[in-house]
Every structure is written in structure tokens, then in C-alpha cells.
């Protein structure tokens, strides 16, 4: 048996075990949600992605009505808001290292950082939501 084949078998067994134990959600996970102006659907997505233990961070989202967010099922005790007018790779690295759901509001993010955030989100099973400028179509389709 080749080394690659053994590696694939081990990965398969591990992923099955993770899904079985609930460590990782089974099935295809949608990483990027571009919700635009429909913030009620944003709340639904965030609430579902947070689950019972997840944490969410809202970046540059000053206009959220937290009453509506709480009514949609978001536990405000597990929400952090950040005011950051300019993006940076350090900021995105911190966000992806500590939160399960990241909502980007009115903040411009360069395509290079978008790619890095999405790659990290895919590997860590994170959920990314955007409300302002749509992220690159190519990246969105790749998800």
C-alpha cells in the first residue's frame, strides 16, 4: 500500500470519526454568505452557524439592531463587535483564530486577504458573512 493511499484512508477514518462525535459538522459547509441588505437573513445565518457554543464577531457593523439579532436566536453573550475602518492581514488573522462566525460590514478587504480568510475559514470550518461590497465572484464560486 502506497504512502498516499494510507494517508487518504487515515484522513477518511478521522473525518468520519469527527462527524460521528460532533467535533466537525458533516456534509458540505457553506463558508461565504453574501447577504447584502437583508440583515434578517444575516441573523438567521449567524444564529445557525454559532450553534450552542460558537462565537461571532461583527466587524464595522454599527447599525445592527441587537433586539432583532437576539430575536433571531443569536446569543448576544457570545458576540463581539469590532470597529476597524481599514483591513489588515493581522486583523483578519486574529479574527479567524478566535471566532466561528465573522461578519464583515462596511470594510473594504483586498482580494488577497479575502482569499486568505476564505482558505482559513474552509480549513477551520468557519462561516464568513459580508453585507457591503460583494467579495470576488471567482472566490465565491470556488466555495
Amino acid at each position, binding site marked *: 500500500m502506497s504512502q498516499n493511499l494510507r494517508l487518504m484512508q487515515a484522513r477518511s477514518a478521522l473525518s468520519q470519526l469527527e462527524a460521528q462525535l460532533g467535533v466537525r459538522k458533516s456534509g458540505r459547509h457553506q463558508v461565504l454568505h453574501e447577504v447584502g*441588505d437583508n*440583515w*434578517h437573513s*444575516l*441573523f438567521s445565518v449567524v444564529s445557525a452557524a454559532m450553534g450552542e*457554543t460558537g*462565537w461571532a464577531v461583527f466587524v464595522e457593523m*454599527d*447599525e*445592527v*439592531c*441587537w*433586539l*432583532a*439579532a*437576539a*430575536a433571531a436566536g443569536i446569543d*448576544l*453573550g457570545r*458576540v*463581539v*463587535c*469590532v*470597529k*476597524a475602518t481599514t483591513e*489588515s492581514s*493581522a*486583523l483578519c488573522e*486574529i*479574527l479567524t*483564530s*478566535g*471566532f466561528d462566525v465573522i461578519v464583515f460590514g462596511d470594510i473594504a478587504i483586498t482580494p488577497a486577504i479575502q482569499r486568505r480568510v476564505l482558505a482559513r475559514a474552509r480549513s477551520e470550518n468557519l462561516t464568513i458573512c459580508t453585507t457591503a461590497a460583494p467579495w470576488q465572484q471567482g472566490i465565491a464560486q470556488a466555495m
Partner: protein
Amino acid sequence: MTRYLVLFIPQWDLEGQALYPAATVQANRISQVSVSAAKAGVTVGTRLRTARHLCPNLHLVKQPEIAAQRAKFSAITAVCADIIPDMTVWWPGRLSVPSAGATRYYGSEEEVINTLLETVSLQCGVEAQVGIADGILAATLAARQGRIIAPGAATDFVDPLPLDSCIDLFDHSQRGQVATVCTQLNALGLVTIKSLRALAVAELTSRFGTVGAILGRLIRHDNPFHLDAKDLAPTQIEVSVECHPPLTSASQARLYARHLGQQLAAKLQARGQVARRLEVAAQTSLTRHQRVWNLLVGANANQYTAYLESFCNAIAGQLDGAVTALSCTGLDLCSAAQMAPTLWGDIRPDTLTATARLQQLLGAQAVYRPYLRDGYSYRQRNGLLAWGEDPPPPAAGDFLGQLGSPYPSRIFTTPRQVRLFAECGRALIPDENGDIYAAPQTLVINEGAVSEPQHITQWWGPWRIGGRWWAGEQAVSYLKLETPRLTYLTVWDGQGWWLDAQY
């Protein structure tokens, strides 16, 4: 274990006030009560106002009277000094002494007590109470009952007693504070002295400060006035090393870093504490370089070493000479138990670390968390707090008539002015009661120079809130409007219509 003799004259400051309920006051709280006042429900630590409510004829002993009474206690101490030299006067009305010497001299503990009581009674005309037991706490409580507690039986004697019994061992100025601590401990389910003994002195100290440290030592029959420095929470722990020969490269410094990191971790572990900030410093012959990190999650030896190593690498290019000393200081120490995760509801370590890093990157006020508060409008009910701050107490009032669900999803930070027109083409302006005379037909949003009219397909309201003229409030009317594009919440503030929120 040292055996103590405690002589106790109850209510010394209130001696001579037996005819009516009397009390002394310290910082607006009752510090001593006479028996008749205690029967009316007045206790030590009670607020003066509450005490007066409980006992309207309560006599408050004035400071000159107290001072005169305290001066009289010198006569008692002079008499006692002949029998029990080297005594310690706690305050007028109580003194203590290690009983071993007097017991040897008089032959037995009973004989010491009899001699002391008889002498004080005959020469001063005062009835005192004396007790002997292991430790100050047991001896003081035994003195209240006039008992001798056999050696080794002090724990059994004090264990079933309530925590409030310890209040009497503190100075009058501290009693209010101790009473508050006891109330908090009772609320936590620690009612008796036995239950408190299960907690380590370090835990009590980190939570309740000096009062906690003294309580912890008292219930272990130690002398609370001989507090070791380690019992009082230190603010920092430093480990340092002198470098011989002085270090000239980062790789040399890294060798010391591991040693320092392990030393700091061992010191903290021995105390059962964790550091929430870490300061690392390197001393050259000319300057001192230093850096501080926030450690919101308790770090271990490897992490301390990693911080030191990264510091050594960072300053390698800035050094103006060889490094002669390296130091590593744990700051803002707290009990490790405080930082230990509980079963539910704790913040994940990675999230905690991420928020701390965000605050370092963007500033403390750039990271905040939402919370809900009371109010009439949606805007009032949305609260934001800087990360790490506690929410303010809820506002008073029943908030009848507050705007209910469904809630808008977005509240505009800067409301935009709009115009509303009725079907007849006239501008829609509410009357003084906030009512509108016709159905709104067109919404015109002012977008700079461009004004785009939107047809209103459905509307709800108006809802009028505020208007308490005696509180200086202005009434506002809310109107929910549905257009083919979006649904908006508009508000009339008496001057014009504003786009307040979006559904």
C-alpha cells in the same frame, strides 16, 4: 499550637448605658450594640437608618463619651498586668495573652482564670469574662461563654458556629467590611466556620483582600496579626538572572530565557496564582529594554519562554551593548482558581486571546459587545459596552408603550431626513397628539441633490412615545412604511420626518 487567654468585657464602650438601647456608629454603620438594642433587631453592620427604624429610641453614644470610657480601661490593664504580663490589648474591652506562662506560674488554667476574674472584679468593680483555648478565635469565642476549651478541641468547638462569630474579632472600624464579606460568603453557601475552612487562605485573600487573609488565618487558629507577606496578595513576582559573562547574541539570551520561564512558572504554581500580564526586561550597561504582554489566559512555562525568546530576537538589533541582566515579571496576579474554566458559560481561551489581541491592535474602545437594556425606542434598547466592562444597572421604570416586535434589523447611525406625502399630495404632518389625518402615499428620501419618490404599499402606526413634558421630553411618533424595495421605520420629531431604521 499556641494557647491564648482572652479577657473580655462585653460592651465596654457602652458600659453605663444599660438603661436604654444604645449603640456606637462607625462610617454610618452600627459598630457596637447594647443588649437591649440587639433585642430590638439592631446588629453590628446595620445601617444607621435601618437601626433607627428598628429601634426608634436608640441612643447613639457620642464620640467624647466613648473616648472617656476607653480611657477608663487603662485601670483594668494595670490590674491585669500584675497577673498576666506581656498581654496584648486589642482595644478597650479586650486583651489577650499566651496562657502557657501564667498557667505554669499559677498551676492550672482554672486557677489563672479565677485569680484574674476575682482581681478585676474586686479592684475595678467590673465583671469580665475569660476564656482559654487554642488560637485567638477559639479563645475569644470561649471567653464569651467563660469556658476553657481543652487542647486539641478548638476545631470541634468553633466549627459549628456561624461565620458572623468572627466579626467580633475585628476592630470596630473593620466590622462593617467584615460583615459585608460574611454576608457574601453566606450567599455563596458558606454559613459555618467549618465550611469556610475548606477554602485556602490564598483563595480567600485573592477574593476578599486583607479581610479574607485574616479570616483564613483565624479559622486555622493562627494569629491574624502575624500575617506573612505571602498571605497578602502580592502584585507581582519577578525572576531575574545576572549574566556572566554579558550576553552578546540572541542565541545566548535564549538559553537564559528557558531557565527564567521555568522559574517564573514554578513560583506562580507554588503560590497557586497566575499572571495576567508579563513584563520582560533586558539590562545593558547603558539602557534597559522592556516589553509587557497581556496574558488573559494563564500561560505555562513554555509560553513564558516563548515570550522571552521573541523579545530577545526583537531587541537583538537595537542593543547598545552586551546584556548584563535579564528579568521576567508576572504582573496582575490572581488566584489560579479564578482563571480555571467552569463547566458552563466560560469564554473560550482562543476567543479570549483574540479579543485581547484585537484590543491591542485597534485600541480598547474598538472592541465592544452588545447588550439589551430598557427603553422606549429600539435605539434606546440597543446597548454597547467596551469589552471587559460590566453592564450598567437597569434603568428604573416600567416602559409601558415601548415599541415591540417585529424589530427592525438595522438602525441607522445617522438618520436621513425624508418627506412624506398623503394621497391628496399634501405633506403629511402629525397633529399635537401624534396622529396623522390621512394615509401616507409617497416617501421621498433625500439622497443629496437627488430625491427619489417611493410609493408606499402598506403602513402601520403611528406609535407615539415620550412626551412627558414635566421631564423635558419631546414626543416622537413612529410610522412603519412598506415600499416595493424595503420596509422602513420613520420618526416624526416635531420638526420633520427621519428615516430611523430599516426592516
